[in-house]
């Protein structure tokens, strides 16, 4: 049945579609691929991570040519499942799974976050900007504390310290990727503490952060997809993680017959796998010199002049 069209399936991670970031972004890539290429697609939202193994097997047996799993925790399972279906390709994120027919994609979130941190640091003491106070404090709100999230935090912090050693990064976690009310309260507490820019890496919880940033007239930084439009003018920028591009890219390679074994993709700044948005709504708030400075930093990272710590790297 190889001949009758290419079939691609995507398994979402816990939280499923509608997170306005990770899974949704991957889904966009899938949709875009479907529009441009002659493929059949399917999205599966499992009950929990354990169901993943079942689906990986079921989908492979159902003749899917490429199975993309958005769930990080499927790495272990894939090591067992993938070798069983040599004709099927699998894709996984955030880790390298050393099996020939698995494509591993590891984003350079730390690099993008470094830029976000640098921008926040440049802004936070410039009281000529109306929403900024003189405190050297910027905020970070994560969903559930985990290494995956702390990878963002560490990059962000390093970016900020790169600009000014005295910048303090105030950190908060909501213990949920879907509790906007809590996001709002944490943001409120940080803002009262003198924070005027908050980087939110918290899925649906982040929506509450944006809401509060708008109320209290400070800035927020979005994540994963371009969230700038959610609160135009309040969301300074978003740290884009182009899951959509990578997925599109993988599918394209597959369709073109170019998908090779043992592929490891590391989309970072250099590959445009991560980046800041074009800041459509906030460009005018940011002094041009800062934007220039940011561009320099970006080039330095790409040229390896600046080394950003990746806490998840081995």
């Amino acid at each position: 049945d190889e001949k009758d069209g290419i079939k691609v399936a995507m398994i979402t991670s816990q939280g499923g579609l509608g997170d306005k970031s990770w899974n949704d972004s991957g889904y966009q890539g899938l949709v875009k691929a479907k529009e441009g290429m002659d493929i059949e697609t399917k999205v599966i939202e499992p009950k929990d991570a354990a169901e993943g193994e079942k689906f990986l097997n079921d989908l492979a047996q159902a003749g899917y040519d490429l199975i993309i799993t958005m769930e990080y925790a499927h790495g272990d399972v894939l090591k067992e499942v993938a070798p069983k279906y040599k004709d099927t390709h699998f894709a996984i994120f955030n880790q390298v799974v050393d099996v020939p027919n698995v494509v591993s994609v590891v984003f350079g979130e730390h690099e993008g976050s470094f830029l976000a941190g640098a921008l926040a640091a440049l802004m936070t003491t410039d009281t000529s900007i109306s929403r900024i106070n003189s405190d050297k404090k910027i905020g970070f709100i994560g969903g559930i504390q985990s290494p995956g999230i702390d990878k963002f935090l560490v990059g962000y912090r390093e970016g900020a310290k790169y600009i000014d050693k005295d910048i303090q990064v105030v950190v908060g976690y909501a213990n949920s990727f879907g509790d906007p009310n809590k996001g709002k309260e944490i943001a409120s507490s940080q803002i009262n503490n003198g924070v005027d820019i908050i980087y939110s890496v918290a899925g649906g919880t982040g929506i509450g952060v944006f809401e509060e940033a708008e109320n209290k007239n400070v800035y927020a930084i979005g994540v994963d997809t371009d969230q700038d439009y959610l609160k135009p003018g309040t969301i300074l920028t978003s740290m884009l993680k182009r899951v959509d591009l990578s997925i599109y890219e993988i599918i394209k390679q597959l369709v073109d017959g170019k998908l090779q074994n043992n592929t490891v993709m590391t989309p970072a700044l250099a590959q445009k796998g991560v980046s800041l948005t074009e800041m459509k709504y906030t460009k005018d708030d940011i002094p041009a010199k800062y934007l220039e400075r940011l561009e320099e930093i970006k080039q330095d990272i790409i040229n390896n002049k600046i080394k950003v710590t990746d806490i998840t790297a081995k």
Partner: protein
Amino acid sequence: MMKKIFKFNIMKFIIPILLAFLVGSIILLISNINPISAFYNLFIGAFGSGRAFLSTLYYATPLILTGTATAIAFKANLFYMGVEGALYIGGFCSSLAGIYFHGLPPYIHIPIALLIGMITGGLFAMIPGILKGILDVNEMVTSIMLNYVAILGTTYLASFPFKAKDAGFSATEMVEKSAVIPKIFDSSMVHYGLFLSLIFAILIYIMFKKSTFGYDIESMGKNVNFSESCGMQTAKKTIYIITLSGALGGLAGAMEVLGTYKRFIAGFSSGLGWDGLTISLLSNNNPIGVIFSSIFFGGLYSGGAQMELLADVPRTIISVIQGLIIFFLAVDFTVKRFKKIKSR
């Protein structure tokens, strides 16, 4: 004898399921999904083939334990709702035993790791147990509170002190090969823990029916004052009962970790403890009933997955239909509803 074990007759399950399907069909029709194909896939995915049934059993394995765990406490009229928390604690601690004990043969390593899961789950449950037994603090409140503590605590531990170096997510290292509970068949995820679950359910059933402790549990559930007057030492027994319940919860967690995930993953349980609670209540706190209800729930999940895969039913509707079925199961349609007022 058989008749007594299968006290719940088959109509008790069929009527609610039919009603749930009726209402479910309406919802599916509204959303332009063919209900026949959807339910066909639900059934086929649950019981339609050997593979499907194995998958059902896979889902049922932890539920049998969490259901039995809840049954122990609920039968004694103790509203201990902390099985979910004990599951996390037991799961986490057994993963450590799986990781840090080296060079043991499987027949020693697995039991030790499981035992550690049980013991730690039980110790964790002892907190609400002691608070209830000695200070008469409401066990429902404390156990729900401690669930949060357990989940948050293990998340922290798996994210930082014990995080696996190569994992891109919050999880411990993989357990040693010798600690992995083997699968029964290569083609299915169901592992030998299933038999352990069944054995425990049956043991607890026998304990309920035959032992003095089971007698104490039954009578505490029906009349605490009487139990105390008969010298059952209800305070002490409360601690035993809740601890035992937590130990089984811990065992369920340990089995999930050693059999399914092979490492502890933060937040791995999608409410296994809560499902166990529902199952226990549906089975009238009878462990044999728990086995059957768990298989039914397993079928619901396995079939739900199949529905999603083959009938293109979105996950959101699947949980609506699963909710509906539970709704109707809560009601005993076989009871004649005559108006009777008890005099006492």
